[in-house]
């Protein structure tokens, strides 16, 4: 196994150009998949026999929740790599991932409570998954707040990376403690979606998951390019890049 790709990714101009070249390869399939998932989820999939058409919120709610988690993972792992190998490119990845993840954590909360209203009769019912999502959102806010509080970029990178790594260890603990807490206070307000889904419902969901994932990579690539450009303003390759 060669590590050259790893070292090459650490080089800002290579990263900038690769991210630029990859963006359309993620963006267009993502657009197609999301449109297909929309048609499948809103039109082709039959209504749920318990929840009626309200369950269709899952096609945006669940992929958003997945993105918010995935982006946290990207942030934590990139932060860890940046701390251990002092790799600046990794910090740029972490910095780019945070706002994307935070925005989808917020989407998850909003769509979750919009789903909750018809199901539970209330917008907020301390469902364990939504509750942990709320803490995930707060962690994102803390991460971005910490990053913004430093004037020195290097210090911001490294300090927020420590927080991201600590969060990476803590998020599962928070989640399971919330689940445990919820099981004690029997509200019976858990989502009723633990039954096996029929393929007509499941396939659009899978398509949406894939579409959202590719989309997030595309947006990450775009943000990453901006981040790299801002960090490397004085470098010669940037001069050549913008002059061209």
């Amino acid at each position, binding site marked *: 196994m060669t590590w050259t790709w790893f070292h090459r990714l650490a080089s800002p101009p290579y990263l900038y150009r690769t991210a630029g070249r990859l963006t359309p390869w993620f963006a267009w399939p993502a657009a197609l998949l999301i449109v297909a998932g929309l048609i499948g989820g809103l039109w082709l999939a039959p209504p749920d026999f318990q929840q009626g058409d309200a369950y269709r919120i899952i096609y945006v709610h669940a992929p958003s929740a997945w993105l918010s988690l995935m982006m946290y993972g990207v942030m934590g792992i990139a932060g860890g790599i940046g701390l251990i190998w002092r790799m600046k490119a990794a910090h740029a990845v972490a910095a780019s991932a945070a706002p994307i993840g935070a925005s989808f954590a917020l989407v998850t909360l909003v769509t979750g409570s919009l789903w909750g209203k018809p199901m539970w009769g209330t917008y907020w019912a301390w469902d364990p998954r939504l509750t942990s999502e709320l803490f995930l959102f707060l962690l994102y806010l803390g991460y971005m707040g910490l990053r913004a509080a430093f004037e020195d970029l290097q210090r911001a990178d490294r300090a927020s990376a420590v927080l991201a790594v600590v969060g990476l260890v803590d998020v599962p603990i928070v989640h399971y403690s919330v689940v445990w807490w919820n099981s004690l206070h029997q509200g019976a307000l858990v989502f009723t979606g633990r039954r096996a889904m029929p393929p007509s419902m499941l396939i659009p969901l899978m398509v949406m998951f894939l579409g959202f994932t590719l989309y997030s990579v595309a947006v990450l690539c775009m943000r990453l390019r901006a981040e790299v450009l801002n960090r490397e*303003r004085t470098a010669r390759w940037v001069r050549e890049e913008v002059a061209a």
Partner: protein
Amino acid sequence: MSEATLEGEKIHLWRGERHVLRGVTFRVTGGECLQLTGPNGSGKTSLLRTVCGLSYPEAGAIHWRGKDVRRDLPAFHAEMAYLGHEPPLKMELTARENLAYWIGVRRRMTRAEVDQTLERVGGERWSDRPVHTLSAGQKRRVALAGLLLMNVPLWLLDEPTTNLDVDGQRLVGTLLEEHLAGGGLAVTAVHHALLMSERGLRPLELGFA
């Protein structure tokens, strides 16, 4: 190779968008004092902080006794003393208590040793007063006592004479001379010339970044 030498090799340091240290190279051996000169903002403090391992240079390395200090920072730290702009003292504690904790984590000291050192820096009368009641010059003298008590070969001093009267400045000069005469090394950042003999002094002028 174990001779007491300190070498800096093409040290580059960036602070944000500023390229503060541009390939600084130096070498000091026992009995020598490297004097860093240059205008404000030329990187004297940055260089001292990089040498003692607080700042991480983008490129270049620091060698102590021929080995890269990054390979074993604790061992390097055990042999060096760094004094920054401000004396590192707790205001609520007395001079004696400050030394007991500050130096105490490094080595055990006898009471006589501490007394002797405090006397050396002219602090026998106020060593049991809380530091916040001391003048700036007296605080600086407590820091000098700490420097002596660390009993290490390498001194890194950032403006060691700040706030000191002429007597105090002479004291710093004498202490440095003795340190060098005993085979010690020093790197000092200075604005005003130190009151000491020129023997062993090696200037290093840092330019503007």
